[in-house]
């Protein structure tokens, strides 16, 4: 096993076709770094928007209204069923289906009209496709998380005179979100990799930036190695972050989510929030 690995490592290290000097030359190339920024931005936005939609979907799924349940089920069925690549291309070509988008009274006057082609850029198409895919998965996880919060919590809220909305916002959702942090971390790693699909929309993420360069220089393999290295770096960092968060959650002395976020990011908005709360 070790011998096989050593042989494999040696053959990669000495393979002339990889051209390690070229890899080193482009690893911190400005185009690659801005592509890296795009990849991170897409991942963060897709996860955050997906989570926000997912919360709404999970609540609809668990509501007593058949209409809400059905709508949520249909959304999840559709966006979990259609491959993200197909969705990206579809959203990008939305103008072919719906030439203009308007806000107004149905069948009545329109208050505002936009040309779909102005709204759908490669970036917005990418966000729509990736966030909607994520929302379907997040919704199912959150539903399980909400159901895992004990019914005693809901009863305690009821006896304190809290309304359904107050119970959900203040007591059930904060606990459900803690439960789904590990799977959300997992999803974030998947999402990071899914963002490479946006290269079909000519959106300059890490992969597309690398492709642009090797289209010019024909140094295909070295630039793919550059992209690979960056993906591995990001997924490794995310894995570490995930383990840190999970350890925190599983340790006997759990701190609040706010404390945890403050420690992870140590940024001003959280401090401000704390002051407001006191």
């Amino acid at each position, binding site marked *: 096993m070790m011998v096989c690995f050593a042989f494999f490592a040696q053959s990669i290290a000495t393979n002339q076709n990889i051209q390690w000097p070229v890899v080193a030359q482009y690893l911190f190339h400005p185009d690659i770094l801005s592509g890296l920024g795009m990849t991170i931005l897409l991942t963060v936005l897709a996860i955050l928007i997906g989570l926000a939609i997912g919360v709404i979907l999970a609540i609809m799924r668990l509501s007593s209204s058949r209409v809400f349940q059905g709508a949520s089920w249909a959304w999840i069925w559709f966006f979990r069923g259609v491959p993200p690549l197909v969705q990206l291309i579809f959203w990008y070509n939305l103008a072919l289906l719906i030439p203009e988008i308007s806000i107004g009274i149905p069948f009545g006057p329109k208050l505002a009209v936009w040309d779909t082609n102005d709204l759908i850029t490669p970036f917005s198409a990418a966000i729509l496709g990736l966030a909607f895919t994520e929302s379907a998965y997040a919704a199912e996880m959150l539903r399980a998380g909400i159901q895992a919060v004990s019914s005693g919590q809901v009863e305690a809220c009821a*006896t304190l005179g809290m309304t359904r909305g107050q119970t959900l916002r203040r007591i059930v959702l904060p606990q459900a979100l803690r439960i789904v942090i590990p799977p959300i971390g997992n999803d974030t790693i998947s999402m990071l990799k899914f963002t490479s699909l946006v290269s079909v929309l000519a959106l300059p993420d890490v992969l597309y930036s690398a492709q642009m360069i090797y289209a010019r220089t024909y140094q295909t393999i070295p630039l793919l190695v550059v992209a690979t290295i960056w993906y591995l770096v990001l997924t490794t960092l995310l894995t570490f972050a995930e383990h840190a968060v999970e350890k925190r959650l599983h340790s006997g002395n759990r701190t609040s989510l706010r404390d945890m976020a403050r420690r992870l990011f140590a940024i001003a908005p959280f401090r401000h929030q704390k002051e407001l709360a006191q």
Partner: protein
Amino acid sequence: MTAPLLKVEGLRKSFGTHEVLAGIDLEVHEGDVMCIVGPSGSGKSTLLRCLNHLEKPTEGVIFLRGEPIGLRWKGERLYEMTFNELARQRQKMGMVFQGFHLFPHKTALENIIEAPVIVKGVRVETARAEALELLGKVGLSDRADYYPRQLSGGQQQRVAIARSLAMKPELLLFDEPTSALDPELVGEVLATMRQLATEGMTMVVVTHEMLFARDVADHLIFMDGGVIVEQGNPRDVLTRPRNERTRAFLSRVLPDAA
């Protein structure tokens, strides 16, 4: 005699075909402590949970100060309230559970101020001051910033009592408050409840603690098979039970008293 604070009329509750409560009538007067005892499965917890409509009665009405719980007059007819209408009535009836049900993601203090701030709109500083006072009352002033998992069962239950009191209820319901506790922790919770009783809090307590019932209750109810078998002054019921079922139950739970 004054009008009762709580009045139950013809209460029945069935789960499917199984009738758990088969017609209950009772009255609780302001400042009274009522203890409900009986073998498991006798319906005593269900009765308590019907009082604040955690369980919807199949039949019968519960009145708090003459106002029907969970029902609303609309012209000549009574309608079932929505959850959020019911929430307003539930503020007046606190409940303490066997399993505490503290909010695990909030500290003791945050547990206590949650409902006053969110439901009643009390200012955070005011609520904190009141919560600290309540923590002092249940003997946990030094545990304000502890999370529930950092507290013992007895401490958690005392925080839960403080949490209920923070809403300034007219009536407190206790559902076997000491049954989930280690024996050595039962005393501290009972002491807190005793103190509340002497302060004039109206309480309905489902319990297995016969000594507490004997010493603290103004009125004792013995339930079996979904009905009230015997009731009255706790000393009379416990020492001179008239009904055979009461006698059988007491001889099981109080072997030396018989």
